Structure formats: C-alpha cells, structure tokens
C-alpha cells in the first residue's frame, strides 16, 4: 500500500535476515501496528524501544506468525513470506522468541526444558520413540554452563527464581539454534549485575545470529551498544545509535520526555 521507508545506514552488501514493509494491523479499529517497515541484517543486534502500546509485542507476534498483518509484507531471508506461516513454522524456520513474562515448563526439570527445546524432529512419532543421545546430553551440559544453571539441572523449573527462569528461557532459545532471536524485556526483574551479564550474553550471541531485543531499561540498551529503533504508535519514529535518537526532539517528546 505504501512505499518502503528510507532506512538509514543499511549496509548494502549484507543480506537482510528479516524484512518488514508497510505492515499494518488493527484490533477493533485500534491500529497496533501502522505501516511499519523494518530491516534486520544477518547477525545484527537491534534494540527496539518505545512507550507502552507502541506495538512492540504485536510486531513480534507478526514476525512469529502468531498474528496475521492486515496489510504489508514480512519476508525471511528475502524469500519466505512469514505472513503465511504460524508459530510452529517460524520456529522451525529458525526464529526463536522469548516472552516478556518468562515462560518455562514449570512442571518439568531444568534439563527437560532444555532437552525439549533442542533442535530435533518435532513430529509426535519422533518424540514418542525418541531416545536421548550423547550429543544431546553434551549440548545440554554446554547450555547449562552458559546460563549458569549447571547445579540446578534436576530442579523443577517452577521452583527457579525469576532471573533464573529468564536465563533458562534464553537457554531454551539457544537450544533451538535459531537464526533470529526475538527477546522481550530480558532485563526485567534482574539485578544490575545480572542485567550486565545478560547484555554481554546477547552481544556474544549476535554475530552468527540476528537478535532483536525489546527493552525499557535504557541502561541495558546502552550496554547493548547497538542500533536502536524507536517505535511509536505502531510505526518507526526514529532509528540510529542510542545517543543520536535520544537526542531527537520528537523522541524525547514521546518517550524520554516523560
């Protein structure tokens, strides 16, 4: 319906991992996403900020096929039309998502949580007759180390602390071995130390994977030290380094201003 917005600083040589153009979605007349366009490069780390109701969650819903956009196109690696797929498809395609409220499988052990997330055949038959392999165990150990839950592998996930659940969920994301990670407010409810550590973790992930982080916590965003997209009323208000955008009057007006 509308022409693609000019996007500042897109390195022309890199292939976009994800490409949203003129995407809109309304709920009962309220436009949650309004003519949104966004491009994420392979391996890019991108922070998305914006006030409540700016459409961050809906954007993620659209990318992961949970919500169908009314208009606009969403392309994966310039070929796959994500608007045709549902959550399971996009997940199998290599898009991992972490919810705002950490959701892990509370009645399974930490280990099972990771095991269930591991990249593998997801069909009922496969899972029915599945036997755990040494490779899988090794990968699980590795992840447990990475998210610092090695000593809790047999705990019920339900009994973990909030922060630990955050990490476990990130761990499950990594276990999926996705190309793109969508991460919704990872720092929520973490100590400063944990926050910083999480930021490092994400930066280390970026590079071979693309990462989109939605966050309120400016400290955290600054720590990420990456390109920032400011969403407002369902469309891109500004894009660039945090310093640059946070200097823009309109951004201050809608967001930092308060």
């Amino acid at each position, binding site marked *: 319906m509308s022409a693609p917005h000019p996007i500042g600083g897109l390195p022309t040589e890199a292939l976009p991992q994800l490409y949203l153009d003129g995407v809109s979605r309304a709920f009962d007349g309220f436009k949650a996403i309004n003519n949104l366009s966004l491009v994420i490069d392979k391996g890019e780390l991108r922070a998305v900020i914006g006030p409540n109701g700016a459409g961050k969650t809906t954007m993620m819903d659209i990318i992961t096929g949970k919500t169908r956009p009314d208009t606009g196109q969403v392309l994966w690696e310039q070929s796959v039309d994500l608007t045709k797929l549902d959550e399971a498809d996009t997940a199998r395609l290599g898009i991992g998502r972490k919810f705002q409220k950490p959701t892990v*499988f509370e009645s399974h052990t930490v280990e099972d949580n990771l095991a269930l997330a591991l990249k593998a055949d997801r069909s009922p038959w496969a899972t029915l007759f599945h036997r755990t392999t040494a490779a899988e165990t090794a990968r699980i150990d590795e992840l447990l180390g990475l998210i610092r839950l090695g000593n809790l592998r047999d705990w019920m996930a339900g009994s973990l602390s909030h922060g630990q659940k955050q990490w476990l969920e990130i761990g499950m994301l990594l276990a999926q071995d996705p190309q793109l990670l969508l991460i919704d407010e990872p720092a929520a409810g973490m100590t400063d130390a944990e926050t910083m550590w999480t930021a490092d973790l994400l930066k280390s992930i970026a590079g071979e994977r693309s990462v989109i982080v939605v966050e309120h916590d400016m400290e955290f965003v600054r720590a990420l030290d990456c390109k920032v997209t400011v969403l407002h009323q369902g469309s891109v208000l500004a894009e660039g380094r945090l310093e640059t955008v946070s200097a823009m009057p309109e951004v201050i007006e809608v967001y930092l201003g308060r």
Partner: protein
Amino acid sequence: MLIDRRLGIFLAGLFVLVVVVPAGNLWLAGQPVPTYLVALIGKYLCYALLAVALDLVWGFCGILSLGHGAFFALGGYAMGMYLMREIGDRGVYANPTLPDFMVFIGWKQLPWYWWGFDHFWFAASMVLLVPGALAFVFGWFTFRSRVAGVYLSIITQAMTYALMLAFFRNEMGFGGNNGLTDFKDVLGYDLGGGGTKVGLMVLSAVALAAGLLLARAITVSRLGKVLVCLRDAESRTRFLGYRVEHYKLFIFTVSAMMAGVAGALYVPQVGIINPSEFSPANSIEIVIWVALGGRGTLVGAALGAILVALAKTLLTGWLPEVWLFALGAMFVLVTIGLPTGVLGALEGGLARTRRAPEPAEREA
C-alpha cells in the same frame, strides 16, 4: 521409569484379583466369590479403563472432554452388534439374519452398516476404528481451529448429546431406546456361564493393565513431556516449533480407542448397550471419577472409578431412599478436602512435589 511405585502396587493388586477371583469363583469349595461379584468387578474394571483413557487427555494434555462416554458407548455398540449377530436365529422371531428389533420395526434386510459384524475380528477392529475415527475427525477440526478450554468441553458434550439423540431414533437401526440386548453368547461361550463371566472379568483386568502400561509409556516418553508442556504453556510450546494440534489429535485418538475397548468389554458383562450411555451425565461422571481419584496420575483415575462405582453399588442397596445425599456429599467433601484426589491424599506429601501445579487457571 515405566513402572513406578504406585503403578507397580496397582498392577500387583490387579494380578491378585486375577488369581483370587477365578479361583474363588470356579475352583474353591463353597464358592467364596459369588458369580454376582465377578460380573461386578468386571464392570468396575471397564470403568477404570475408561477413567484412565480420560485421564490421559485431561490429566496430561489439559483437554477436559465431557464427551468420552460417546467413545465408550461406540465401542460398546460395535461389540453389541457382534453379539446381536451371534444370536442368529435364536431370537423370538427366529429370523436368521435380522436382529429381533429390526424384525419388530418391520425391516426386510440388514442395513449395510451392519455388514461384517457377524465376524468377531471385524467387530473387534471396529471397536477401535469407530471411536478412533470419530475422535480423529472431531479433533482434526477442533484442535486445528484452536478451540480450547470450556468451549472444547462444551462441544464435546454437544457431540455426545447429539449422538444420544441420534441413537434414540429407531430409524438409526441400533434398537432405539432399548438398544441392543438379550445377548446369548460370545465366540460360542454362553454369556450366562460362570466361566465366561470369569473370563471376561480377567480379560477386563488384562485390558486395564495394558491400558495403564500404554498410557504410562506414552506419558514418560518425550511425547508425554510435550503434552505436559502444551497443557501448562501452550503458546510457548508452539514457539518451540511443536505442532500442538498434532499432539492433541494423537492423544485424543488414542484415548478414544482405549475408551472404545472399555466399552466393548463392558457390554457383554452387563448384557445391554443403549443410548443412555451417551448421556452427558454419564460423561460428566467419568470426569468425576478422575478428579476424585487424582487427576494426572493414571492409577488414581482407575482407583476413582472403582471407588465411585463401589460406593454406588453399596449405597443403592443400603440406603435406596437417600443414597444420593451420601454420593453428593462425597463429591463435595473430596473436592474441598482432597484437592489432589484420593490417590494424592494417600500418597500424602509425596504427591505435592511430583504433581503439576494446577493448570486450570490457564484453561479457564
């Protein structure tokens, strides 16, 4: 592991039953176990298998089916049709092909959907296929369109209610309100004979054991874990790339087949199958067995079924005038007093850490 403590104990109990009852009924002097008791136990065991089937979908997958009685009844009808054909020309009208009720409503030849039921193997396969097929078709649409929670429960109820009305209709050719009855024998064995009764009861016990083991095997497999995942956090499971609807469909169909088997074993032991088995109240009672025994524990479900059936048998005989008070009070007290069901209460503290946090919030 496949056989945990509670399952082991229960199976042992079943085994004792399988040894003690036939001995006591057929061989021991003075018949300490009366034939009446044999038929009764057999009936209870069928209920138990049905309860296990429901627990599989409700306890582990969060699908509260208020229509499981339908699968039970369909399995029962499939077996009943075989038993009807077994009667042959021994019916009151001595019609070699047509069951009495068809002669009675003036039908001239056997409707196509009765063909083949004179062969046991055919009937036996129908016992699995008919409920399975219904569950598959119903589930295919329902789970794909993401019907969940009470909406799912109520349309399963609508399903069994519609089937009940349909089977009431005499034009359906299933004996209408009277259903199928007056069976003579199964595979040549006289249904009146004590030996046959014992045999059927033992068969029911074996079926229950097999059902429990199968259910247990499913729930401890990774598939079982995925089921718990989608019970507790469905969308998370989707985002991990699991096709939730396929899993639900699988377990729903398996459960329906299990219910069908229970029904098939039930019919020859009670001697009648009729549309009231489809009534929504019956299906609700199944849910109550499971909840009362302990949801999500398989063994608990079986136990619940047996306890309620036992209570009914005793109360209707002891206090025919007021037994409903007792039964009602029992349901109320168990719900409030034993949130983890009878089994949970029995296993005490053990249950609390093992059992899942109540997923009901998410469903409602």
